[in-house]
């Protein structure tokens, strides 16, 4: 069972619908024990960093999410669910985030229109079962004003160009996250959810040796 974390994110229902559409078994929850028992954790997200962190704190889900990540449970973060993995974001005058990966989320330079909104190419930098069946440079749907820099970081799974080259997908061990919205990205996005769900289905709780 995949836990889709419910903390008031605007795209919760779209993410839920997409996962159900590909046949994933999910529960939408903010209950720590349900998140703890899950074989996969999905963190949706849209909007501003400070709001997102406040929502997570208010729902009381941060310890459960971090425990799941530490226990090797497959994690999928969407949009703000990627950004909050970093140490901090420049948004809202500086917002402390979860610090799962090093680095700081920054605003796009004003040389192009912000937000970056629309379909853009995702260049896979690593081979991953999460990209199985998804062609190199497939288009995904983006809506965001802040981005994670690349900076030669080891966790960069895919990059996208929009005035700068930024991290459009992140992968470190069991932690995967996308800046784009797979739930609005047509067949490519649904494939990604199916890939994640399959991976989560292979994970057995409290078995840290599984992928």
């Amino acid at each position, binding site marked *: 069972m995949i836990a889709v974390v419910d903390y008031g994110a605007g795209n919760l229902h779209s993410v839920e619908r997409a996962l159900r559409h590909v046949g994933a078994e999910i529960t939408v929850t903010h209950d720590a024990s349900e998140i703890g028992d899950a074989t996969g954790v999905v963190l949706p997200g849209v909007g501003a960093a400070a709001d997102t962190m406040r929502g997570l704190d208010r729902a009381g889900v941060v310890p459960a999410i971090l425990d799941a990540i530490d226990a090797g449970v497959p994690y999928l973060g969407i949009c703000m669910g990627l950004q909050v993995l970093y140490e901090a974001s420049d948004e809202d005058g500086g917002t402390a985030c979860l610090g799962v990966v090093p680095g700081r989320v920054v605003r796009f330079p004003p040389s192009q229109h912000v937000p970056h909104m629309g379909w853009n190419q995702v260049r896979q930098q690593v081979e991953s079962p999460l990209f199985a069946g998804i062609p190199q440079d497939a288009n995904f749907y983006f809506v965001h004003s802040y981005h994670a820099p690349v900076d030669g970081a080891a966790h960069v799974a895919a990059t996208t*160009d929009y005035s700068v080259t930024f991290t459009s997908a992140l992968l470190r061990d069991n932690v995967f996250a996308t800046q784009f919205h797979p739930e609005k990205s047509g067949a490519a996005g*649904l494939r990604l959810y199916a890939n994640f769900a399959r991976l989560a289905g292979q994970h057995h709780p409290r078995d840290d040796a599984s992928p």
Partner: protein
Amino acid sequence: MLTRRIIPCLDVKNGRNVRGVKFSADVDAGDPVELAARYDREGADELVFYDITASAEGRDIMGDLVERVASEVFIPLTVGGGLRNADDMYAMLRRGAEKVSINSAAHRDPDLIRIGADRFGSQCIVLSIDAQLRNDRAAPWWEVVLDGGRTPTGLDAIEVAQRGVELGAGEIVMNSIDADGTRAGYDLDQLRAVCDAVPVPVVASGGAGSIEHIRQALVEGRAHAALAASIFHFKMISIERVKRELVAAGLPMRMDPFETVAVSGQPVRHSREGGNPGRA
């Protein structure tokens, strides 16, 4: 690089898709949910639904429809028509719309744009402008009209677009009432004028009759996206063919449709109308 977008528009009346020459005789063009699924399969980048009844009852039907479409179609959905306040907008976003498009209400009360953008973000707020060419001044200009052209406002469409962006609109849909429904081509002068005046994406609307018209709107008109209704509804041209030809003309387009695969590894949806051969 951001791709240019092809956006089919569905005019919805009492839960059915209708289309004629706009604001006159309507022809029933089918079930919106089925059409939406077909457009998605053909490679539509986004879908726009306009409630052309725009009554309170129409909005309820529209909400149900958006929810049904959002359960089957996983590309951005925009809903417009009769949204008069932030609560109307919220109702559509909650039921699965990505963006809301406001027209008459925003021209009568521009503050609605600001309120919507503050509450939901600029990326959610599309300002739709119906405009008609006027030649009664030294230079030609476009007047904002309401109620499908029946109500002139005296407002200059380019100024209204600029003001709308200042208030928080994240995108402009420029609909030429002169060209709408004619299938004789978009109003390219109007598109250029608005694209040069605002920093946000502009969607060309009104007049599509051929792939060449769409190419002109995106190249000569400088629009970021092209919206069309009847040429897609009546299968005069498939979206897939439009995009293939625009790629050949050098425009960046999203061209990676392939079969949706479920957790089980089996294909899901793409099952209606004989299915899709599936390209990887």
